[in-house]
């Protein structure tokens, strides 16, 4: 299906959510590259480049999700991956959700997100990017 890079950013090591999401996505037929803990946005962007990622997901619990998302978004744009959808998972207060949504994030998955909703949402995002790429290039995306 698609190739998805997931990572924890910075020093926040709360990885219950991201490891569960990685498993769900794998079981949903996706190829998941989980970059583990203690990543800088630069490292995640490099991995996304190398792996030719269709989607990037970062997980935040005790860190600042607004700050982390902004840095991740800018870094992806910096390496030419601005069109790759970025999704954020973790503990996000309603106020933060509003701010993060403004940063060009494709989806935010909070606590209690169910497996089916996550898989449907990811499938929708991937279909939308494929469609957009077809329209822009005139050729279908390789994935």
């Amino acid at each position, binding site marked *: 299906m698609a190739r998805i890079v997931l990572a924890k950013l910075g*020093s926040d090591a*709360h990885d219950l959510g991201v*490891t569960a999401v990685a498993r769900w996505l794998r079981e949903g037929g996706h190829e998941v590259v989980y970059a583990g803990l*203690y990543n800088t946005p630069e490292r995640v962007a490099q991995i996304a480049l190398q792996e030719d990622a269709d989607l990037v997901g970062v997980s935040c619990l005790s860190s600042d999700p607004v700050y982390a998302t902004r840095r991740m978004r800018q870094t992806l744009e910096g390496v030419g991956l601005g069109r790759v959808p970025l999704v954020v998972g973790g503990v996000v207060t309603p*106020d933060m959700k509003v701010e993060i949504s403004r940063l060009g994030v494709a989806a935010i998955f909070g606590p*209690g997100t*169910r497996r089916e909703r996550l898989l449907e949402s990811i499938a929708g995002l991937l279909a939308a990017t494929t469609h957009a790429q077809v329209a822009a290039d005139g050729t279908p995306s390789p994935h």
Partner: protein
Amino acid sequence: MSTDRLFDRYLEGERPADFKTLSGVELPAFLADRPSAAGERPGQYPFTRGIHAEMYRQRLWTRRQQSGYGTPRESNERLHYLLRQGATGLNIDTDMATKLGFDPDHPLFEGEVGRQGTSIATLEDMEQLFDGIPLDRVSSTLIVQPPASAPFLAMYLAVARRRGIPPSALIGTIMNCALTQLAGATQQAITHFFPIDFSVRVGLDVMEYCTREMRRWNIVNVNAYNMRETGINAIQEAAFALSLALEYAERLIARGLDADAFAQRMAFFTAAHMDLFEEVAKLRAMRRIWARLMRERLGAKDDRSCWFRTAIQTAALPLTAQEPLNNIVRAAIQTLAAVLGGSQSIHTTSYDEAYALPSEASHRLSIRTQQVIGYETNVVKSADPLGGSHLVEWLTDRLEADILAMMDDIRARGGFVSVFKAGWVEQQILAARFEHMDRVESGEQPVVGLNCFHDEEEEEPKMEFFAYEQEMPEARMRYVREYRARRQAPALQPALDALRRATAAGENVMPPVLAAVEAGATIGEVCRTFGEAIGHTVES
């Protein structure tokens, strides 16, 4: 669920889907046999019924809410607030940079400094954090693991020394557990920055130093709680923590210390989950097992060496982001379990835990929860009030047997440190966390307001969450750079060189760490010196 179906269900009989405890123990409908603990008394070996004869009749548990955020000055204000509300002990949480032994200007912690706890880098910081707190009259738990526990404790000692308080008069605890502090996450969290063997060694250095110099201080707090939060059950929680504590004790004896010199200063940090009777039974079983291990295996003569003393935090894993007010009820029941189980100190987790660090209001509510139980319910007026209950005694025996069987298995595999390094603990944790998630996802494990009885149309109440000063991480970064530039520290480089040599030579690191801290070293500089001494560098 439609109301029609609900009515049907009530008619059929509304009942539990199964009769198992959270750890999977099948409960009988009732028990008629004689409870086995008949003859055991609170305050008597093996202390199943409590470590003191009178328990809370003589002294309530310590109300010890974790706190820490932002700058040391901000955290100090919260500490004073908590004490004014009736906290009777302090529980200092540090941010990840501090815990992992880095200064706030390290790039990995960009945007995160002071967010998961308070940011401490210098002796000045430590002085500010404890400003106005009498260190010989208020006990503090310092939540830091090795190797950063060494410079952190050294700074605490240096603050005391400047105030004229000798180490032997200090009361409190250094968590100081190399394996369990970050065990809520995967193995990478524990192996990424320092090799496990080195962290264990520094932890033992700190324990040995405290045993010799700080007779009222707890030398380690084995963090069973953080392991439990992954989704492992009560049996695993107890077996993991007791196995590791036993191994620490054996290693201290191998260093030439007598069990009676240090065992009474070892302590635990355990969870109080939702399964009330199982949690009480777990604590009773842990007390009995620990007492027997200390006396029968390690030859401790002093009764105090056989005391299983534990701080408790109410479990956050069963708390929900949905309908967060339900968490107040959960925390109250969990706090009651901790009290009925005979805990020495309690942190009641805040109802807003799923979103943020506690606000002043939610911190106060946690303290009030404990005060209501302590002052209004009368459950404190007789020791071990559930002792003799058929169910609780039966469960205590059953959990004891299951915990001992798992401890034997860990021992047969080479001991806890060894199975941890081999990845066995990580496998157990991952299996448990996925099973827990699947059970919640499928509804097999009911969580009220999440997978059952959740009203999709009901709007969530508007909550005020704790929010940080946006400038704080940046300010801390500037501070530590400015500190390094302005300090007059001619003794610093020789002290760090001496620390490097002592670390490489395998000597106890505490004396040279103390000297380095007195000479002006930051926590990051001390830990970087550790890394240089053992030839370990971290990719960043």
